[in-house]
């Protein structure tokens, strides 16, 4: 069920350049189910900034009623978020949307992420591993300074890193790594910039894939029609990223 709650901030730290890891606690965490869902955060009690910010859930700890997000402090809203400290409260609405279907993977899955699209793949990798699925992680970042969670992903499976400037791992994009890897997986999951999602879909037209999309949002719950994408399923309808997605099967979204 969707809740709105003033959650307690448990931990906030910068884990890479401008990248923050934020853990919050509260009843809302108990509602979390699928990896790839997101929450809608009000970063200030002020009307400026006015709108909530959508941030994915990076890992869930049901026992402690906590979950963790990872975000880049870039614009005004995320910068204000980065100023919060343990003990402060945070106005969170969630969990929202439909996440990655873990039950779709058979044996081996590729998890392909770019930049701030990487975080939701971590909870996904945990849940897939818990179901006995082998996961391979192909993660792209701007540069070495922007890399995060490399070791955590390694603990869960094979992990390949690409950086645009070549300062760490393979130089280039995740697609450069994908070209070198076998195609012995049954399912892929991906989250990152739209251009990356497109490239990944092109690379594996025969595979079952699930992709997480981004759009600017108003309500975050499906009521305002801000976050729509055209879809291959209908000429006369849109799908909404916030409530129909953000995760869609490959081939559904026209971007």
């Amino acid at each position, binding site marked *: 069920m969707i809740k709105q709650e003033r959650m307690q901030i448990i931990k906030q730290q910068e884990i890479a350049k401008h990248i923050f890891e934020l853990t919050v606690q509260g009843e809302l965490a108990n509602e979390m189910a699928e990896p790839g869902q997101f929450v809608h955060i009000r970063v200030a009690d002020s009307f400026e900034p006015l709108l*909530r910010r959508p941030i994915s859930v990076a890992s869930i700890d049901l026992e402690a009623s906590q979950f963790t997000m990872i975000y880049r402090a870039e614009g005004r809203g995320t910068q204000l978020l980065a100023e919060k400290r343990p003990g402060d409260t945070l106005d969170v609405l969630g969990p929202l949307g439909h996440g990655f279907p873990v039950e779709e993977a058979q044996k081996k899955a590729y998890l392909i992420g770019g930049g701030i699209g990487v975080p939701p793949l971590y909870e996904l990798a945990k849940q897939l591993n818990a179901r006995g699925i082998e996961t391979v992680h192909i993660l792209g970042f701007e540069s070495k300074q922007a890399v995060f969670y490399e070791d955590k992903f390694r603990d869960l499976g094979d992990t390949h890193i690409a950086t645009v400037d070549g300062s760490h791992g393979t130089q280039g994009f995740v697609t450069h790594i994908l070209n070198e890897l076998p195609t012995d997986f049954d399912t892929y999951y991906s989250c990152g910039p739209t251009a990356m999602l497109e490239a990944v879909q092109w690379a594996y037209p025969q595979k079952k894939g699930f992709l997480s999309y981004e759009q600017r949002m108003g309500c975050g719950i499906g009521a305002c029609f*801000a976050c729509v994408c055209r879809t291959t399923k209908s000429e006369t309808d849109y799908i909404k990223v916030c409530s129909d997605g953000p995760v869609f099967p490959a081939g559904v979204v026209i971007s």
Partner: protein
Amino acid sequence: MTDLTVKLPGLDLKNPIMPASGCFGFGKEYAQLYDLSQLGAIMIKATTVETRLGNPTPRVAETASGMLNAIGLQNPGLEKVTGQELPWLEQYDVPIIANVAGTTMEDYVEVAKAISQAPNVRALEINISCPNVKQGGITFGTDPDVARELTRAVKEVSSVPVYIKLSPNVTNIVSIAKAVEEGGADGITMINTLLGMRMDTKTGRPIIANITGGLSGPAIKPVALRMVYEVSQHTKLPIIGMGGVTNVDDVIDFLSAGASAVAVGTANFVNPFVCPEIIGQLPERLHELGFDSVEQLVGRSHRL
């Protein structure tokens, strides 16, 4: 006991609070969060004759204490709205105000005629003020003669009272209000959004794909309040006021300025529980201010 009820043409409201059109879809999403029967009424998303896809994205952009939107009247079309959305809403004990939009006068008439027959639709809100479509919309709301004509035409076919939604993007809002009064309107809803724009500073490109969008939220409250104050002085029509309402004190201000009821738009995105929260706070706030009923407060600023 504080009396929150409000009686308006076609509308017997439990309380004066309702979500504004376009900010609440057809109710389904918010129904996951609370019981819609708590609301005074619901203004549903604009309905047009045909299914509308609306504008390309991005459709929203944030501004200082406000937001721009250019949804472009996306909606499933008259048939689905009367066949699916409205029947679904019948499970709630809440009057529906149907927002009607179109490109030609005939469009408006067709939608108004059909949708006003739905059992839970108690009033129409004629959207002659949508800034985000190339044709129709705002053009009907900026010329008094056109507005009067359209009101007449819609009034003729509608089986429920007709409220006209005014655009703030005009030199003289009172002249438009008077024109729709002459045209036979039963009430006025105001204001729709102010036309605005935001750039991506890095590229110089407008952020909204439609280039311009409608400005809503707390930023526009002073403009909305001023217009409600002016129009309520110069027409006898009841007004449902809106524009930047986020809390119970904003509601008091709109009632004081002359609105009989108040709609909440953008604030639903910031706090999805804002409508029931305000409804819950109203009795105490009225009491603190020395009022026993909402109706006592209406137009208070004019009587000082």
